């Protein structure tokens, strides 16, 4: 199966937002290697506490404290080290700190919902946050997004760039969510679902979820003297 078959198509009419935004003309294929130049060098620094979304305000946010960890790998299974991982999410009530979010659920003065960290030498990332709530949207009647955390990654080369969403195991809303269901195969959808991680769970403190991320590597095999 090619890489593309695992990705959602641009046009997925059940997700209404794609109908006027998906390109209609065929995308132009460049020869292998044209998108193998270095990934963007992200200009923002990352500080020690940026990975902890529960410590950005004087008080603690409301909700279920969780730890989200995993590894970032390339498609050859090699760890992607030193790459920035950006996350953002709704609060425990399912509300984003965003002026366009009209869901009548409370904002939490102790939760902004954004964080970032750098992967370590083995590709590990780690966030402390609260479990986001589900929220309604207007795609179709009684549409609700399953709980999710947005992730943005750069990786090593330009074609590694990935923006995606992490879901939680057992969420009954996943089956009716056109954004998740836009991924054509069950295995692909499953790769966006984290798993409960009892080993990382901290007794008396926080449940943990584990989610590994695999980014595109180079399309062309570099010559030996380029390695």
């Amino acid at each position, binding site marked *: 199966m090619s890489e593309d078959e695992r990705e959602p198509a641009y046009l997925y009419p059940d997700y209404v937002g794609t109908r006027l935004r998906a390109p209609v003309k065929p995308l132009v294929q460049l020869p292998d290697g044209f998108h193998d130049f270095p990934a*963007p060098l992200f200009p923002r620094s990352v500080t020690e506490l940026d990975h902890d979304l529960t410590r950005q305000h004087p008080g603690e946010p409301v909700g279920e404290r969780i730890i989200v960890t995993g590894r970032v790998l390339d498609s050859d299974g090699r760890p992607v080290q030193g790459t920035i991982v950006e996350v953002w999410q709704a609060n425990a009530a399912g509300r984003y700190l965003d002026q366009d979010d009209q869901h009548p659920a409370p904002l939490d003065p102790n939760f902004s919902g954004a964080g970032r960290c750098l992967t370590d030498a083995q590709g590990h990332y780690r966030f402390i946050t609260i479990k986001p709530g589900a929220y309604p949207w207007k795609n179709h009647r009684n549409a609700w997004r399953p709980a999710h955390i947005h992730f943005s990654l750069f990786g090593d080369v330009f074609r590694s760039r990935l923006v995606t969403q992490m879901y939680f195991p057992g969420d009954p809303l996943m089956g009716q969510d056109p954004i998740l269901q836009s991924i054509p195969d069950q295995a692909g959808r499953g790769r966006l679902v984290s798993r409960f991680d009892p080993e990382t769970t901290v007794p008396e403190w926080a449940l943990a979820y584990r989610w590994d991320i695999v980014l595109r590597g180079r399309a062309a095999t570099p010559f030996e003297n380029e390695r």
Partner: protein
Amino acid sequence: MSAPLTPSQTVGPFFGVGLPFEKGEQVVPAGAAGSIRIEGQVLDGHGDPVPDALLEVWQPDEGGQYQTVVNSTATGFGRCRTDAEGAFNFVTVKPGPSRAPDGHAQAPHLNVTVFARGLLRHLVTRMYFPDEPGANAADPVLKLVEPARRSTLMARDDGEVLRFDIHLQGERETVFFVI
């Protein structure tokens, strides 16, 4: 044996809390020597503005090299969200010609990435410069684009600024590249 890739999902409408950052649109500081201003609009298939898109530019330096070392003053990266009119802007410098994988020169260009609500995967396009007719005519990527559509990749000199609109759909649909 290759590991299966993690699929893409839309950036959604509420990325504002996480991704944009102050002066993200300034690849170089506004007013810096040699700086140019790029302005554009993202439009949907009805020609309506897309007010919830996020654009990133990534470009080599004036010598055609991509930065790979942190702590330089200008990294070559910019990020800007569209406003209520679908408008965005960047302040940058014109990059030098970079090398294609086969060693041939590519005309100066910015790599432009588009994220938006309704885009399940991001889109990649390029912005070329109108004052480079010779280099553009020889560019190996432009040559792969059907001639009638090449103008969608060309910025327009609008006096003080370079104008670069992105049409996600429609008659003037921008050329996007398979990633």
